[in-house]
C-alpha cells in the first residue's frame, strides 16, 4: 500500500497535469452517464502520488517536458509500434500483482513483490535528460532509487557477475505487440557491472511525482540517462547477474545498428541517420546532441580508451 504524502510540485507544472487528468475523468464520467444514466466514480489511473523524499541530486536544470508529451509519445513496441497509441493500448495493463526475480551469480537470489521494492529505499526525484536513438529527446523528472543500492542490499553479486541482464514481462494477451515477432520477445537489456552500480543508474517507479503510467513502463523500469533510450528497459520482471555480455533485443534485431553500449555520441552516426542533433520534444528547432547526453563528467571514466566507433 502506498502512503499518500503531499508532493512538492512546481506551480508552473501543475496546470498541464491537472488539466490532462481532469479532462480524462470528465470524459469517463460523461461516458458512464451516457451508458447507465448514473454518475459513477471514474477509475483511478496513474495519478497516485509518491512519497518523494530527496530532490535535486544529479538533476538537470532544464525545462521539463510536459507530462502530457511524456505520457502520450512512447516507444513501447510490446503494445504497438505507433507512438501515439501506446497510452490507449496500455490503459488496462495489470501492474498488480507484480514480482521481480533476481538470479544468477549472486549470493541472495529471490522473488520480490513490487510493493516491497517501492518501500525499500527513500524515493528520490531525478530530473534526467532522455535521448532516444531516433534523435528525439525529453527532460523527465523520474522518481526512484539507485539500482546500485538495490544490488548491494538484495543481491550481493559474486566475482563472476560481470554483467546485469534485465527482462521485460512476456504476456501477449495483455501486450498485443508481442503477438508479432517484430522483436524476439521478451525484451532484454543489459549493463556492465560498473554501469549498473553507477550512481546515475536509476530503478524508477514513478515520474512527475506520481506512480509510473503504464505506457512509461510501470510498475518498474530502468533509467540510464547517458545511453540511448532503448537501454532504459520497461516493466521489468527479471534481473539476472551474468558472466558473459548479454545480447540485448535491439542488438539481436539489428546488430549493425544497435550495440551493447549505446552511449549517446554525436560523433558516431546511426548507419541510416545522423546523431549529431536531436529534436527536444516541445521545442521547434533541433538542438546539438551532447556527448554521453551531457553526463560526460559523470561517466566518461568508465570508457577510457574505448573505441566508440567499434563499441557503439
Amino acid at each position, binding site marked *: 500500500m502506498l502512503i499518500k504524502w503531499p508532493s512538492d510540485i512546481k506551480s508552473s507544472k501543475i496546470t498541464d497535469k491537472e488539466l490532462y487528468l481532469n479532462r480524462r475523468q470528465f470524459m469517463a464520467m460523461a461516458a458512464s452517464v451516457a451508458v447507465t444514466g448514473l454518475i459513477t466514480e471514474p477509475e483511478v489511473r496513474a495519478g497516485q502520488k509518491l512519497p518523494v523524499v530527496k530532490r535535486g541530486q544529479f538533476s538537470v536544470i532544464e525545462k521539463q517536458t510536459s507530462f502530457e508529451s511524456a505520457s*502520450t*509519445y512512447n516507444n513501447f*513496441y510490446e503494445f504497438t*509500434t505507433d*507512438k501515439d497509441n501506446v497510452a490507449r493500448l496500455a490503459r488496462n495493463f495489470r501492474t498488480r500483482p507484480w514480482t521481480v526475480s533476481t538470479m544468477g551469480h549472486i549470493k541472495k537470489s529471490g522473488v520480490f513483490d513490487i510493493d516491497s521494492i517501492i518501500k525499500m529505499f527513500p524515493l528520490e526525484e531525478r530530473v534526467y535528460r532522455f535521448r532516444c536513438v531516433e534523435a528525439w529527446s525529453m527532460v523527465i523528472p523520474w522518481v526512484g532509487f539507485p539500482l546500485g543500492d538495490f544490488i548491494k542490499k538484495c543481491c550481493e553479486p559474486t566475482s563472476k557477475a560481470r554483467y546485469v541482464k534485465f527482462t521485460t514481462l512476456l504476456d501477449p494477451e495483455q501486450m498485443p505487440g508481442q503477438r508479432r515477432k*517484430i522483436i524476439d520477445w521478451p525484451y532484454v537489456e543489459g549493463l556492465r557491472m560498473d554501469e549498473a552500480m553507477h550512481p546515475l543508474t536509476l530503478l524508477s517507479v514513478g515520474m512527475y511525482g506520481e506512480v509510473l503510467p503504464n505506457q512509461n513502463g510501470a510498475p518498474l523500469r530502468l533509467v540510464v540517462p547517458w545511453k540511448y533510450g532503448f537501454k532504459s528497459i520497461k516493466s521489468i520482471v527479471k534481473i539476472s547477474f551474468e558472466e558473459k555480455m548479454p545480447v540485448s533485443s535491439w542488438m539481436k534485431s539489428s546488430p549493425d545498428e544497435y550495440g551493447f553500449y549505446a552511449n549517446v555520441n554525436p560523433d558516431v552516426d546511426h548507419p*541510416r541517420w545522423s546523431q549529431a542533433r536531436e529534436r527536444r520534444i516541445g521545442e521547434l*528547432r533541433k538542438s546539438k546532441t551532447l556527448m554521453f547526453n551531457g553526463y560526460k563528467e559523470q561517466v566518461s571514466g568508465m570508457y577510457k580508451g574505448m573505441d566508440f566507433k567499434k563499441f557503439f
Partner: protein
Amino acid sequence: MESDDRFIKLLKPGVFIISLFPLLWLAVQAVTSGFGANPIERMLHHMGDWALNFLMITIAISPLQRLTGLTWPMRLRRMTGLFSFFYATLHVFTYVALDQFFAWGAILEDVIKHKRIIIGFVSYVLLVPLTVTSTNRMVKRIGFKRWQALHRLVYLSAIGGVIHFLWLVKIDIRKPLIYAGILAVLLGFRIVSKLLKKEEKI
C-alpha cells in the same frame, strides 16, 4: 445521357476538393487536438504517406480502365499525378524548413551520407519533369510518343518512394511492405498485359 454529362462535369472539381482533404485534416488537427508531442514528425509522415498514396492512385488508373472498361478515370490522372507532386513538395518543404530549419549544411550532409534521403531526393526530383510536362501544350510540343516515354519515370519515382519509406522505418516494415505489394501488383499488371499483347500479335 444528361446524368453522364453532369457526372463528368462534377468529377474533376469533386476529386480536386477530395484530394485536398489530407491537407484539411492536418488543419483540423492543428486547431483541435494538436499534432501530439512531435508535430513536425507527424506532418512529415502525413505528407509522405499522401504523396505515395496519390502516386499509387495515378499508376492504378490505367489498369483500372482496362479491367473495368470505364473511361472517366483517365480524365483524373493528370490531377492525381499533380497532387502526388503537391504532397511530395509539402513533404520536402516540411523536411527542409521545419525539420532542418534551412540548415543547408546538415541537409547536404544528409543527402550525401544517408541512403534513405538520397533515394527520397531522387524520387522527388524525378517528379519535376513530369509536373512540368503535364499540360496539354507540353504534350503537343514534345509529341505524344516522347511524352509517354518520359512519363514512365513515374514508375521509378514510385519504386524509389517505397524504398525511401522502407529505409527510414526503424524496424516495423509492415506499411512500406504494403505499398511495395500494391506497386508490385500495379507494375506486374502492366508487364503481363504487355506480354499478352505480344502473344496476340504472333
